[in-house]
């Protein structure tokens, strides 16, 4: 803004009116252009925020009959047997949490390890190829993971555990962990890279070993990235549909072992959306959508809470 006031004054010193008018015109055009850009950005922001709110609104609107007609208790129960008039979706909510939790349990330590390996613990020449591979993984469509898993991983699990059909919590969690691994690695990696150059030399000069540097210097400095990776990784795992649908078995039950077939809220919606749209089963998918929305939001908020409780500097960056 200072520049805006400063430059036109320059134009006043020589007695050339036309030059001044030209400059002022140029400034006006610049301001106009800025206004247009601001408008476009505002529009983009409004459209994206509006869409999210509209989705939530539509979900709530379609789910409203459940609340007003008193079907809520039926839907918030533990049994899904639509042909015996039982429409409980809680097993699916449990399934979603179990699957996403297990996938995170595999992918997050793996991601941490990978980042540690690429940032000082492993040979330097491997960093490029490893990160290249991770970047490549982001471009594989999830249906490919699902398909390959059905062909290869399902028979392996079935062969190892004869009582299981292979379509199970375990199989889906392993497949899903591969799918969310790049998200986790790239987020942690981005944060590590920011502190990397600044601190590595200083730490080395102080006599830290690479492992010590990573554990005691880089980890605290990159903790924002660690939390963000956890939040986004978990959200992706929770939101995935096609892998769960293809590999998890889809039985609407509370899993008792990793080898049990489970159904997530997302695959539940995908399976039930094809039913007769006048049925009560069909209505339950809007409730499932709301629950999914709620669970994702709750996980996000909880992790953010934890983050701001443990990372004092986090607030500044937000």
């Amino acid at each position, binding site marked *: 803004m200072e520049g805006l006031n400063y430059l036109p004054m320059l134009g006043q010193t020589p007695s050339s009116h036309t030059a001044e008018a030209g400059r002022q015109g140029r400034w006006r055009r610049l301001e106009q252009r800025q206004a247009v850009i601001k408008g476009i950005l505002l529009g983009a922001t409004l459209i994206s925020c509006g869409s999210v709110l509209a989705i939530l609104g539509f979900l709530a609107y379609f789910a409203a009959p459940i609340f007003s007609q008193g079907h809520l208790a039926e839907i918030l129960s533990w049994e899904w047997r*639509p042909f015996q008039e039982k429409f409980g979706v809680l097993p699916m909510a449990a399934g979603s949490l179990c699957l996403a939790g297990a996938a995170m349990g595999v992918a997050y330590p793996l991601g941490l390890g990978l980042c540690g390996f690429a940032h000082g613990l492993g040979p330097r020449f491997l960093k490029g190829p490893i990160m290249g591979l991770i970047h490549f993984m982001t471009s594989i469509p999830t249906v490919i993971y699902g398909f390959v898993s059905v062909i290869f991983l399902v028979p392996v699990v079935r062969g190892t555990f004869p009582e299981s059909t*292979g379509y199970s919590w375990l199989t889906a969690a392993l497949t899903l962990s591969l799918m969310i691994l790049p998200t986790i690695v790239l987020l942690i990696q981005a944060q590590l890279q920011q502190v990397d150059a600044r601190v590595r030399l200083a730490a080395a000069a102080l006599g830290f070993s690479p492992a010590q540097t990573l554990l005691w210097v880089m980890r605290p400095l990159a903790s924002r990235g660690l939390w963000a990776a956890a939040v986004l990784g978990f959200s992706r795992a929770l939101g995935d549909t096609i892998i769960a649908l293809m590999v998890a078995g889809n*039985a609407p039950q509370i899993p008792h072992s990793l080898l049990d077939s489970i159904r997530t809220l997302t695959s539940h919606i995908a399976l*039930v959306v094809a*039913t007769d749209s006048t049925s009560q089963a069909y209505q339950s998918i809007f409730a499932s959508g709301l629950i999914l929305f709620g669970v994702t939001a709750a996980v996000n908020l909880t992790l953010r809470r934890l983050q701001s409780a443990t990372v004092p500097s986090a607030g500044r960056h937000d």
Partner: protein
Amino acid sequence: MLKSRNGLIAIVFMLVLSFWTAPWACAQDLQSFQNLEGKIDIAGGTAHIPVMKDAAEAIMKANPKIRITVAGGGSGVGVQKVGEGLVDIGNTGRPLTPAEVDKYGLKTFPFAIDGVAVAVNPKNPVGALTSQQVRDIFAGKIKNWQEVGGPNAPIHLFTRDEASGTRETFWKKLLKKGPIDAKANIVASNGAMKLALAQDPQAIGYLGIGFVDQKVKGIKLDGAEPTQENAKSGTYAVTRQLYMNTKGEPQPLVKAFIEYIKGPEGAKIIQKHGFIPLQ
């Protein structure tokens, strides 16, 4: 999903091919399409897909001005899409419910009979079961193949999703609306069922007779082999009709398509894919 998209790609490919091969491909039946042009979108029941695809291919070859797309989704999707006007023909493997007819004003055209076969992996020595045994297996009462004369191995149950017409036929006609174990795995199409059964020697499931080939073994039910001949004669009782549905009276092009499917040319295609034409 994957399958229907491949189908779509195949049809687009055929469309391109048809520009070269069009002049000679003009069977008697296809002449009703000569003065027509436009597009027909078809979606719904997965059992219908092979028949629809072959018919679409023949028609598009005969008349390149007509474009036909075929997608899956299941019977429920077929009703919704045609009801909402998203497609011209919505296929179902079950009769429409009165609520569906009322809501959308649908008109229904049955065109074939399909049998639903109980099937296992070809490696499974069990080849025949009674209806009662099938009911007990699907209810989760019989848990080991040993109990029905097979090897000592747990039974892996596979069933279809809630929207499936195949599941509805199986459940009503064979299970007599009896329970299906909540532990049973659920697959979302006839194709996925075939893949699951073909991979797993301990599996049991059910699928349209048209899908039974050397990769899966149809189970003899109370002595009746699950074949289209037996389904036609009534010896094999687990059958259903396949329907095409339109919203109100069909447009001339859609009407021509339905008449083609129900005519002699269509009957040949229907038979080729293991169904029995209705005439």
